[in-house]
């Protein structure tokens, strides 16, 4: 589980929510502007408790390693009507920009860390916070893949892969993004 799926699990165990209600709760602010949702607040509050600590994904645990491998496999899977995978923009040695935005790469040291250690971040263009599952959904939408469901196994796989790549980075929440 990653942070958000763990929160989702707790909501099911102790707040009596069904998995569908949890997903709806997580998606409360998707596609909106200036939306301050309770879900985002919970994720933000818990994430900030880790400020100052370093990311430390334990790849020795076989379940964690398995999710890391699945995340990595999907990261490089070309798919969809635009032939994209995550690596199209976020891997490789070449420093490139998409329009005016500099792209980070898992192959260049430190960049993945700078990207994930600041989630949830405040998004200036929509004037609201953004958790990492929302960020995955937006990436996947831009890749023209089918719509991503938060709290899915893909989310856990991607989080495991990205945060493990970022091992050692100091957590500094909230970040700010365009």
């Amino acid at each position, binding site marked *: *589980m990653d942070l958000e*799926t*763990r929160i989702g*699990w707790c909501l099911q165990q102790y707040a009596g929510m069904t998995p569908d209600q949890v997903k709806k709760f997580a*998606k409360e602010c*998707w*596609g909106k502007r200036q939306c301050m949702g309770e879900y985002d607040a919970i994720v933000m509050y818990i994430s900030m408790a880790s400020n100052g600590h370093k990311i430390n994904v334990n790849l020795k645990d*076989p*379940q964690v*390693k*398995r999710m890391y*491998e*699945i995340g990595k*496999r*999907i990261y*490089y*899977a*070309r*798919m*969809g*009507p*635009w*032939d*994209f*995978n995550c*690596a*199209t*923009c976020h*891997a*490789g040695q070449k420093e*490139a*920009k*998409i*329009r*005016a935005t500099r*792209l980070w790469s898992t192959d260049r040291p430190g960049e993945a860390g700078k990207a994930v250690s600041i989630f949830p971040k405040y998004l200036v263009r929509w004037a609201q916070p953004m958790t990492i599952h929302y960020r995955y*959904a937006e990436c996947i*939408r*831009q890749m*023209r*893949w*089918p*719509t*991503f*469901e938060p709290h*899915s*196994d*893909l*989310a*856990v*796989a991607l989080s495991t892969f990205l945060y493990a790549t970022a091992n050692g980075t100091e957590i500094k929440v909230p970040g700010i993004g365009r």
Partner: protein
Amino acid sequence: MKKALLLGLLAVGLVGISTAQQKTKKELGVTDEEARQVLMSSFEKDQRFLSKAKQDESQRICSKYPSREAMPAKELQRVIDLENKNMKYPQWGIYWGDWKEGEKVAKISRGGRYSLYHRDNPTLKGGNCYACHLIEKRVPGGTMGPQLTGYGKRYGITKENMNTSEGLEKLKTVYNIIYNAWSVYPCSSMPRFGYHGVLSPEDVMNIATYLLHPESPVNK
């Protein structure tokens, strides 16, 4: 924690596999089938769009390698051969289209998006070329792909030679790249716009004209 892990395992269909088999699978790493299960279980169950998650043969080959440089020559040739079978041309063959229309289609960034939580329009057409390319002077663009400013001029296309067989060959070369980039650059980051039906052959003709026509702002 255990419950969710169990749910996770169920979701990827590992129920019934003995511990011994599971261990072997882990030693061998993750199978394609497992990864595919995780992927497909994580999308919205909207039948209209789930078909977009197919992977064709060329995509499967490209997915095996992190980059084109890591690919053996045989695999590269296989993709080129596969993609050369996927070319389609306009009804009238190669001709100089309308660069103004090409400019419009090239500049639209929202084409082909179809999520419901955002107000996306799935029928909107656009190549989003400026995401990855610098095309006109002083118009912001990306640097993922090669710079295309003054492309027609650099390619030596002028008003005098544009309708000769050499001129039209050059136009066809660029058409091929836009319609199906993998027929020339296998496993390129560039989507196969024509092959996937994102752009029609006429759209591709117009965009190629936008890039190469002497009157186009790209070449001014």
